[in-house]
């Protein structure tokens, strides 16, 4: 350690910068929970007294529960389908040498970069031309476009991280492809699968842009919040609802990333180009 100390010596200004960076990253979001416990219609300092009435009020609203239920249904469906497709795709991308793999991977990762409004608008046009009414199904299709590349990006490092010869050994010992996958591959990539399920669920649960164009009469939770933003008197209850969503999302994503740690840095090299 001490041999290369001239590079490794702590850099105080940089440490300070990193601390300020992290605080700035989290601070704006932390104001939401802070003001959600404030007993005032207005979001401003100085704070009034502490209250939980905005939260209590939320529980009594049917519209919130309906929107929550819609978001959960879409999120679970999207997480399951996109992770299932993601497992096969990630296995193919890591395990097989195929001509044209580069362009294929680029195409799959495209939704991470292309502005979502384009996908939203294009799907809206398709649905209206086909005469398909907008519903939670159309929202789910939109969300799958975004979640599939995320799922694959999470899973690829998992497949890269374990030795293909274990799968071959299983095949040599007489297991067929299905059982090899079920008993060898899946347990090995398990943490990645779990992380993919949690992350895609959260992305779908929190997604707004596609839902804005593709949802019909049943709003998802972000759509419900968007609708409430027009009413100044609803501001505190929107703060309370946002706080709950943010805390839950942070916990799920943190757990997902933590389960899958060790694979994060590798996943970024794949989709960066």
């Amino acid at each position, binding site marked *: 350690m001490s041999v290369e100390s001239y*590079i490794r010596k702590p850099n105080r200004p940089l440490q300070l910068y990193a601390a300020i960076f992290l605080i700035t990253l989290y601070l704006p979001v932390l104001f939401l929970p802070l003001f959600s416990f404030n007993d005032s219609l207005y979001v401003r300092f100085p704070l009034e007294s502490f209250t939980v009435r905005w939260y209590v009020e939320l529980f009594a609203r049917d519209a919130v529960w309906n929107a929550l239920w819609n978001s959960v249904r879409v999120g679970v469906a999207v997480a399951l389908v996109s992770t299932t497709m993601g497992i096969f795709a990630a296995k193919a991308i890591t395990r097989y040498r195929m001509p044209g793999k580069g362009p294929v991977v680029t195409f*799959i990762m495209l939704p991470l*970069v292309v502005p979502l409004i384009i996908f939203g*608008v294009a799907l809206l046009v398709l649905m209206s031309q086909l005469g398909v009414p907008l519903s939670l199904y159309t929202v789910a299709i939109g969300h799958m476009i975004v979640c599939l590349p995320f799922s694959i990006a999470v899973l690829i490092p998992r497949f890269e991280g374990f030795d293909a010869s274990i799968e071959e050994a299983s095949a040599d010992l007489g297991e067929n492809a299905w059982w090899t996958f079920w008993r060898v591959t899946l347990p090995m990539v398990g943490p990645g699968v779990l992380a993919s399920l949690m992350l895609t669920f959260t992305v779908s649960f929190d997604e707004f842009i596609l839902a804005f*164009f593709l949802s019909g009469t049943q709003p998802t939770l972000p759509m419900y919040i968007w609708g409430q933003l027009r009413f100044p008197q609803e501001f505190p209850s929107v703060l309370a609802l946002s706080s709950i969503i943010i805390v839950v999302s942070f916990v799920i994503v943190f757990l997902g990333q933590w389960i899958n740690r060790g694979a994060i840095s590798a996943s970024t090299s794949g989709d*960066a180009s």
Partner: protein
Amino acid sequence: MTDQTLQSGSASGTAGPRAGWFGRLIYRSETARGYTLLTPALVFLGVAILVPFGILVVMSFWTAEGFGFDTTLTTHNYEQFFERPIYMALLSRTFGISGMVTIATVLLCYPMAYYVAFHVHRNKMFWLVLITLPFWTSYLLRVFAWKVVLGYEGVINSALLSVGLIEAPLEFLLYSKQAVIITLAHAWAAFAILPLYVSLEKIDKSLLEAATDLGDGPVRRFFRITLPLSLPGVISASLLVFIPTTGDYITPALLGGPDGAMIGNLIQKQFGPINNWPMGAALSIILMLCIAAISLIFIMLTLFVRKRIS
């Protein structure tokens, strides 16, 4: 791209009647096996991206007529785009805002990525998870949080007022270009950090030691070794921030006001209140073409830089 999808599609199509032959083909050919596994993802993305996009292109040559469309093909919408200065002004403002956001994000994130790559030795993963965590959570709510912070009676204004630093609320904070730039830079920071981190992490530390041994100070070492070697990361980070922000409409809608409106807002309005879908389609296509052109420049730049480095 499409013929590969077709190829794998037709391969799986023959699976039913002649499973034995297909099974052997699958067993022998890596390519066939790989594409069979990729089929669900590729077919889904092909249908959900390429088909709608094709229809969007066709619709951009239609014209709106009352509540329906005149489906005769004409370039009317594109002519409109070039004839009426508002469209061009909005597009160039969009690219201006996105450009500023990109520069701000990359400049602010670079030291952070550098810190994690070179100065964090234990719990690197914890740091990366911490930095990327907000990116996964609700974009709408993060923008909404900035509205709370920057608002006329928001966190900054009311805090400054109660301390007595200002007499009246600062009006330029909300509903302005600056508000949009701050919010977007904050929202996309995590996306920029990862490619920067990866490119910095890849740098061979012995090069830095060699530079130091040969008499370079920390500043010269940074500009002669670290920065050039991390340029691919800087370019991909710029691309990853610039492209998605050009299509944003939530941030300008919530924080932008009249000065901060972007092309995304107009596209959204064409599909909403203005109800001129063909014009909205044309604007989307124009935005896509501009993005494609800019990406091409960035990619050429990456290739050039890579060649220079290696």
